[in-house]
């Protein structure tokens, strides 16, 4: 099957007043439609850089980033991005926040609004649509952010540590909800996280990155049964701990190898 997302020999360099910094090097990755991929790694391994490249926020210094065989040059409606914080506009109601993507791309039709309403309803926010963001809890706000991202019907969802600022219980609930929603809509997802358990529980494949420069160390495919289970159930699966340990070991070994322990983090 033709991959939906592809990185081909991607190198990215950050150039600033301090000099040029190699952020990621020799990235080759293909993600097929409907897959859920996680990127894990130590800080400075270029996780967010990869996400920004996929989103079209950054252009690679060398190599190609493709969606459906087409080079990504700028952010597009095909790719949705969920940020670490919700960044709901405090001056807009929940519905107006969720429809901002449609508004910006000139697609705020009655149909589009109806779709967003149904999304909000499915995410348990049906009664909150006329409220203001400050009236909502952190978990609800992040759900609105999810609805906002899904509103433009992207094929791919990029998730940039979207659960990291939440309390554990809400985080687990939201993991299930996001997983279920993406699965039922058949979306492709790339999750960046520093939480190995979250990566193992949610994804089909976990990709471990190494740093200085950021590169792919290895990939782990989760067992079939864990893939099919909700994240909270996957966490209780017999092979969960084993997979977790494998990823952990790999991360540790990649961490110690070839670079000084006291090297500065280039986040």
């Amino acid at each position, binding site marked *: 099957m033709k991959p939906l997302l592809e990185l081909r020999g991607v190198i990215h360099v950050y150039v600033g007043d301090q000099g040029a910094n190699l952020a990621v090097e020799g990235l080759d990755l293909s993600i097929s439609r409907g897959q859920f991929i996680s990127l894990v790694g130590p800080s400075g391994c270029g996780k967010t850089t990869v996400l920004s490249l996929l989103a079209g*926020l950054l252009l690679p210094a060398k190599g190609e980033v493709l969606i459906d065989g087409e080079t990504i040059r700028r952010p597009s409606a095909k790719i949705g*991005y969920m*940020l670490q914080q919700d*960044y709901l*506009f405090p*001056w807009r109601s929940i519905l107006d926040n969720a429809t901002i*993507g449609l508004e910006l791309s000139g697609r705020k039709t009655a149909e589009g609004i109806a779709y967003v309403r149904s999304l909000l309803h499915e995410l348990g926010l049906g009664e909150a649509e006329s409220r203001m963001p400050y009236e909502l809890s952190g978990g*609800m706000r992040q759900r609105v952010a999810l609805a906002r991202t899904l509103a433009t019907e992207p094929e791919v969802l990029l998730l940039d540590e979207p659960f990291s600022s939440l309390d554990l219980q809400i985080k687990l*609930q939201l993991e299930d909800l996001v997983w279920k929603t993406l699965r039922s809509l058949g979306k492709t997802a790339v999750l960046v996280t520093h939480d190995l358990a979250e990566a193992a529980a949610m994804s089909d494949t976990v990709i471990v990155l190494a740093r200085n420069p950021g590169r792919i160390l290895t990939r782990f495919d989760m067992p079939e049964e864990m893939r099919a289970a909700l994240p909270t159930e996957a966490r209780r699966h017999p092979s969960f701990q084993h997979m977790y340990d494998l990823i952990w070991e790999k991360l540790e070994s990649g961490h110690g190898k070839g670079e000084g322990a006291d090297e500065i983090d280039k986040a």
Partner: protein
Amino acid sequence: MGREKGRMKSTKHSDGYDDQGISREGDDADHSVHASPSSKSDQARLFTSNEDWMSALYRRHLARSRKTAWAVRSTQGLLLILFFGLWEAAGRNRWIDVLLFSYPSKLLDQLWRTLLDGSLLPHTGVTVMETAVGFVLGTLLGTAIAALLWWFPFVSRVSDPYLVVLNSMPKVALGPLFIVGFGPGLMAIVATTLSVTVIITTLSIYNRFREVDAGYVKVVRLFGGTRWQTFRHVILPDSFATIVATLKVNVGLAWVGVIVGEFLTSKSGLGYLIIYGFQVFNFTIVLSSLLVIAVVATVMYQIVAALEHRLTRRRRER
């Protein structure tokens, strides 16, 4: 008393509403109040006695804050009466030079006469009009220039040292240039006023534009938003409160510009009256004009403050 009860009730009601609306979603449910109905009557009794006790606490709090508010008001009133009373007494008993300092009843007499002969209101109207034009135009123009600087970072970097110099300068010193440039009259006065308000407005609003959280901008960029959309949907609404607050500051600044402008070149206005009174050595005119300025400026400031309150009410609830 009745009103207090009502308020307590309505607070409770809205809490209950929140429970229904938010907690049912399952996030931060706090059901501790409704928990464990072991003995319902016990609970009810506890609840009513608690309510009595709490409303007593609330009443005591209200009584105390009313008392403080009254003390503040009466002290303020007393100071005012004392000031004008002393001034009046000092004037009538010739403790002070009446030619220079006049006294309140003379001021009121002057104001009353000029009000009746129809000369006071036109002067006041002209000054108020000039001030209003000055602070509204100053805020709009400053915001527009700030938008320009935001839009073209190159322009912003180039103009930075010039803005610093202009901002440090006492702008009213440019007054003579405006008179030469625009001719004596309204244009020169408005220009003087704008010179006072525009630069500081530009600087503070441009700074606010730059402080907008990059995350909001990123949201718009990720949806393929244009630069104009970023400005319209993020930069401007996020800075709205600052722009309105600047309007308020500009009311004060505009008065400086207008009065100085009228000092320099005018045949009407309260600033003109002050200079005229000074030239004919009639300080009753000078001081009564000052009195009018104090009243009118306060009213204008309060109107703009009320406007600010209205416009930002929804956002302040954050």
